[in-house]
């Protein structure tokens, strides 16, 4: 079968579009969490969305409904919990992470029958996404783009140095909560395609790769989005050619992209040069 067969199958078209929209959106929120040193937040929200999707299956609702509910509640709770309780966001995320993992396994245990659909949420299935799923991803990616365009300067200031942003009169807490909510929204909507155990790698890996290669926030956003989409499309193509699970191959490709970026990282060379000259 020719490579162009992709244009004849609706499920492949949906997968390619989901890779474009989900890959770019996950990578962009990844830039927020990687730059703010909140990588664990991506993991925490992914597991919350996973627990929510399992809850939905248990009560007979669409998985996206629970994923959104749990993902957004977790994202919304992390900021105030960290701000008011005077401990770091990673600690707050860790507490919520353990709670959500406990709930996920509880819901899984309570689910009657073969649990096939529930287990499918672990690794996702980008090839079974419907046009409706793609439209949801398009809406979320559009909302994220609007958030970035409208509040770019505030987002950049908060992501790069929240204390400075607060000191110059930017509503830093509101912008931070907006970033967390967007992260929750994107992860929850990408979960059915990539899976609860894999979605956070699409958040972290492309952004971490971009972080190795540029000193500019705008370039980092663009590079991360390109890496996210490339990871999804290359993973899809390889899984199509070699009959492999798409979600797993996408994650492996995104990890390979990160490894390549780390090897060719100009920042690391700069650091080595600085150390060498300091020692001389």
């Amino acid at each position: 079968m020719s490579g162009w067969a992709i244009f004849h199958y609706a499920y492949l078209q949906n997968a390619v579009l989901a890779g474009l929209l989900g890959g770019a959106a996950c990578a962009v929120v990844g830039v927020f969490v990687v730059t703010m040193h909140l990588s664990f937040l991506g993991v925490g929200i992914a597991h919350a969305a996973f627990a929510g999707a399992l809850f939905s299956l248990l009560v007979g609702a669409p998985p996206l409904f629970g994923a959104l509910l749990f993902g957004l509640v977790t994202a919304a709770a992390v900021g105030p919990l960290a701000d008011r309780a005077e401990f770091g966001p990673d600690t707050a995320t860790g507490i919520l992470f353990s709670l959500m993992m406990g709930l996920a396994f509880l819901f899984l245990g309570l689910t009657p029958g073969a649990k096939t659909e529930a287990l499918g949420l672990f690794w996702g299935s980008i090839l079974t996404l419907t046009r409706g799923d793609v439209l949801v991803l398009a809406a979320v990616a559009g909302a994220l783009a609007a958030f970035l365009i409208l509040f770019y300067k505030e987002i950049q200031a908060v992501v790069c140095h929240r204390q400075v942003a607060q000191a110059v009169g930017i509503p830093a807490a509101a912008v931070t909560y907006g970033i967390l909510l967007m992260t929750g929204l994107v992860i929850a909507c990408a979960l059915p395609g990539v899976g609860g155990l894999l979605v956070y790698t699409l958040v972290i890996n492309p952004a971490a790769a971009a972080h190795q290669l540029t000193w500019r926030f705008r370039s980092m956003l663009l590079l991360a989005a390109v890496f996210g989409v490339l990871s999804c499309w290359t993973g899809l193509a390889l899984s199509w050619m070699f009959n492999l699970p798409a979600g797993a191959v996408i994650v492996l490709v995104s990890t390979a992209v990160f490894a390549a970026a780390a090897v060719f990282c100009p920042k690391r060379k700069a650091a080595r040069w600085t150390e060498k000259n300091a020692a001389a």
Partner: protein
Amino acid sequence: MSAPVVEIRDAVVAYRSGVALDGVSLTVNAGEAVGILGPNGTGKSTLLMLVNGLVRPQAGSVRVLGGEPFRVMRGYRLRRRIGYLAQTQRIDPRLPVTVRETVAAGRYGRIGLLRRMGRADRRAVAEAMDRMGVAHLAGRPLGHLSGGELQRTALARALAQEPEILLLDEPTASVDPGARGALLAHVDALPALTGAAMLYVTHETGAVPGGCARLALMRAGRVWRDGPRAEMLAADTLRALYGEEGP
């Protein structure tokens, strides 16, 4: 006499670890440069955070530029008019932000939400970098700067803000002795450039800028003495403040 821009009466601020300010009172007039001097742990940094609305008083009153800075919405509006340099600047060396973008952040509060930088804003940023001697570093990543360059960039950010009050918390603390004199000269130039009142915190008597004609000495969360510079820097006063070991 100029109108007061900072009026603090019997303010108390407590953290979980203890009381940082214990009934502090201080009045600063428009255009006045005041040095806040005292040993570590006496509440100097918290005093600046109180003025900037970053901490809320448990008791007492705080009025800055006619408003209460700890109120959420009022605080945002007031902070746009206050240049603040925090004591510690921990910068991730890989942070994707340049010196120009950092200085420009000083304008963002004034510009407001949903609006972009205009020509006047870009000019103010360029002038601020030029005056603080960091114009040649404009495109450099923030994480590549030395301690002195980092502090001058932060001063440029405060200058770009066109503040009415400047709050500087130990700006020379992480700077090597060679660069300290140049940095203090930049600090001394700020009130004249901006017309702003300045509160300058330090624990070192030798690091007080020459422009601070008035010094407030802090001890145990309060202003212990407040008066002319020469009087406050007298040897017996400093011994009483720092103990026999000296500052």
